[in-house]
């Protein structure tokens, strides 16, 4: 272990302010000058794209280093280079001063680089301990693995029950398992890819405390994020990427979030949804979505919607907030008709849905942007024009009888690409090669372009860069302004508060709270999302 040279003081659990001062006495000084990671001039090209263009990144031992950038800025590519998934076309990587060249992720793991991915690499049918055994190289039997999980969990404040099946765990707990696995493999450089995307504010704070503890242990933590507040809160230094290039590295305590935002986007960005004059007007007499007593089966018992009542009016944006896995996803699927309802009714603009599935819902004027946009919402390898026709291909003008009208499909696609500013070489391009923001624009163009009565948007901005988030939010506002009711499912409270007329909180499949605009209380909403009733104070 590389603890010897870090010599940092005693762990400061979750204590950001005190550490900020610490870190400004440059973190690299603590390492005696040898950085844990030093990437120089790293260049990675893909067909027609330079994902990383001479990127420099230096991370000291014992430091929490944020890697900030929009989607498509090259953060993922850079971390894939560092974890051995990609081989750089140019540039050098040094770990603790020694040049390395990884041929596979296995080499990187052997060299002490571990990554906690946004999408966990866990076998959900196995217990925590069994997952621990996988890839540990046969170092343990199940009993010692359980023991090790408890020890590590205690040491780093990551309590997990080793005997629980992974599918029974909350997303936050699954993330803990991933981190424990990395720690167990003696990772000295730990990369966390957007780790807070799935957490409640309270869970995120606990994660930050763990990150700090790992850094105090002499490990280097690379924190990939595009959330400025979090970066400001937890990191010692920040490296910003834009368009595949390094913008610069700054000491967090010496910068501001406005400055970071400017670096990240290349211009100043303010999304002004608080502009009340511009807020969509609600038509209180027209209920476009009327859900009564809706229950459905869930992936897990906690995530099955249980007797949900919900109304959305024309022009109204209602946000459903909750930690992922508390039934929001199933609720949306049940309303749309791809998940069977076990009780309750759904009416769209006054017409009862007869639970005949997506075709009926679409015909009634329900549009749906699913969480998994590139595999569920869109068919990834099909060209853009086919994806834009995915809902309308059954009816004129896109088809006549059993035959498609290729010309009409292409004309409609050209029009939508123009109207929604989708950046693509052509309408024949496979959808999966577009950037995240443009993929979402294809989906929005198709769904909003059908002039629906009600639009359900499930985490529509997750994983997008600041610019694309702005575009998506404006599109949702525009849709509401045109009289569409919008049901926005989000884990991002800032987003909910910026956009919604009303916030509904879901926990374990039930609606546990409702807040009209003007009465938003972030603390209470956060607690409700975490399953605490409002009266109990501050536990996390």
């Amino acid at each position: 272990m590389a603890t010897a040279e870090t010599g940092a003081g005693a762990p400061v659990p979750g204590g950001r302010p005190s550490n900020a001062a610490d870190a400004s006495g440059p973190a690299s000084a603590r390492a005696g000058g040898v950085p844990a990671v030093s990437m120089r001039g790293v260049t990675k090209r893909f067909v027609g794209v330079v994902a990383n263009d001479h990127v420099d990144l230096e991370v000291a031992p014992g430091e929490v280093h944020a890697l900030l950038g929009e989607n498509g800025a090259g953060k993922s590519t850079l971390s894939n280079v560092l974890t051995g998934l990609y081989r750089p076309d140019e540039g050098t990587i040094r770990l603790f001063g020694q040049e390395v060249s990884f041929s596979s992720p296995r080499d990187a793991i052997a060299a002490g680089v571990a990554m906690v991915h946004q999408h966990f690499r866990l076998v959900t049918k196995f217990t925590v301990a069994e997952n621990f055994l996988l890839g540990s190289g046969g170092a343990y039997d199940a009993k010692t693995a359980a023991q090790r999980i408890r020890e590590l969990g205690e040491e780093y404040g990551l309590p997990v029950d080793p005997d629980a099946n992974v599918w029974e765990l909350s997303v936050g707990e699954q993330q803990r398992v991933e981190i424990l696995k990395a720690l167990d493999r003696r990772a000295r450089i730990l990369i966390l890819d957007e780790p807070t995307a799935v957490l409640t504010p309270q869970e995120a704070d606990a994660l930050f405390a763990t990150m700090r503890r790992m850094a105090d242990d002499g490990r280097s933590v690379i924190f990939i994020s595009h959330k400025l507040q979090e970066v400001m809160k937890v990191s010692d230094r920040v490296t910003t990427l834009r368009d595949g290039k390094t913008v610069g590295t700054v000491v967090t305590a010496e910068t501001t979030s406005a400055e970071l935002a400017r670096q990240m986007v290349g211009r100043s960005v303010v999304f002004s949804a608080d502009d009340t004059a511009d807020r969509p007007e609600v038509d209180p007499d027209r209920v476009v979505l009327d859900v009564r007593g809706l229950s459905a089966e869930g992936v897990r018992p906690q995530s099955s919607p249980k007797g949900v009542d919900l109304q959305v009016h024309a022009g109204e944006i209602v946000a459903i907030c909750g930690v992922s896995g508390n039934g929001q996803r199933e609720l949306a699927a049940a309303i749309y008709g791809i998940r069977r309802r076990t009780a309750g009714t759904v009416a769209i603009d006054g017409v009862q849905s007869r639970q005949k599935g997506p075709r009926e819902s679409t015909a009634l004027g329900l549009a749906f942007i699913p969480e998994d946009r590139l595999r569920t919402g869109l068919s990834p390898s099909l060209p853009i024009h086919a994806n834009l026709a995915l809902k309308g291909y059954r009816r004129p003008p896109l088809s006549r009888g059993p035959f498609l009208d290729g010309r009409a499909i292409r004309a409609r696609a050209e029009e939508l690409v123009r109207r929604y500013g989708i950046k693509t070489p052509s309408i024949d391009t496979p959808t999966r090669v577009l950037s995240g923001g443009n993929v979402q624009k294809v989906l929005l163009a198709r769904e909003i372009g059908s002039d629906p009565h009600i639009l359900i948007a499930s985490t529509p901005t997750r994983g997008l860069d600041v610019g694309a988030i702005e575009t998506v939010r404006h599109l949702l506002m525009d849709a509401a302004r045109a009289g569409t009711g919008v049901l926005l499912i989000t884990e991002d409270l800032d987003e909910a508060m910026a956009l919604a007329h009303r916030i509904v909180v879901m926990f374990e499949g039930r609606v546990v709270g409702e807040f009209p605009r003007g009465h938003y209380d972030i603390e209470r909403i956060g607690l409700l999302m975490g399953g605490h009733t409002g009266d109990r104070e501050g536990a996390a």
Partner: protein
Amino acid sequence: MIRLEPRLLRPKWLSVAVPVGSIVVALVLGAILITVSGNSALDTYGRILDVAFGSVQSWSDTIVAATPLLLTGLAAAAAFKMGLFNIGGQGQFVMGAIAASGVGLALPDVTGFVSIPLMIAAGMLAGGLWAAIPGFFKTRFGTNEVITTLMLNYVAANVAGYLIFGSMSFWRLTTGSGQVFPQGRPLSDEAVWPAFGGGGLEIPLGFILGCMAAACLWALYRYTRFGFEIGVVSDSPEAARYAGINVPRTGLAVMTLSGALAGLGGASDIGDIRHVLDPKGLGQTGYGYTGIVVAALARWNPLAVIPLSILLGALANAGRALQGATFPAGLVGTLQGLLLFCAVSGEFLTRYRVRVGHKRPLSAAELEAQAA
């Protein structure tokens, strides 16, 4: 150090270069084998070329040999394109042959204008139903279609064997030499399918039907709602479900279509070529399996199945004609195997890019030492 990287985009030229390259590599590997076996590769290939394409008669023989491969190739292409691994082309082919010969035998005196379309319909129906059985279990219960379709091949072979060897069935010849050697009853002249062409070139009806089927399949993918749905389901079943496409029904329909094409191949085998139900002959030729090679080389493109079936038909034709002491036995089968092997490897290359690196990664121990 060799490593593989997934390709983001598949360049267009690869879809031509890979099959051509696969064939070239297979021929080179075959040449090595021929040389090792003590023959001249150049000479052997020259003779194959001559026998397969050297004269009008060779062309006719090659096209006759290509006909069943064209239809089983289309059957495999239709199913595999959607990710349905229909290994049962052989069984569907046999069932098509049984049904078509049954109809042909039942209508000995009816004009061919009536009996032949009925034979075609019966063959397609039987092959389609035979494929619909595993299709149903696959789409309803998620049963692995590789296993079920493969098992049904043996069932079909045994059904055909029973009809000729195990019983005094309607299909069995009970007069003349049939009393000595068990064999099938031959079709009447009316029920024998016509051949087309001129100047000595004879193209069997089955081949023409196969070309039409290939064109229909291509047009289906390109111009119809059903084809659009197949495209979505093959690419992303989740997206298909989301868009309201009935995924199981689409899968079952494609499986049935695939079986019907193989069944048409069986009907053509009876009407065009054998004119009699011959279980042993059907088993030995293994058209259903060779069809998978054809489809793989064609990268599931129905139009590309036509030339590739001719290529493999030529090989089979030459193999039959050249059998003897100076021609390596089993060469044709070996070449077919090499072609499939190269086609599958080639398919892999369209997905990944091979990178050659040189630096050895450091081990953890070395890094620890560096860090200390």
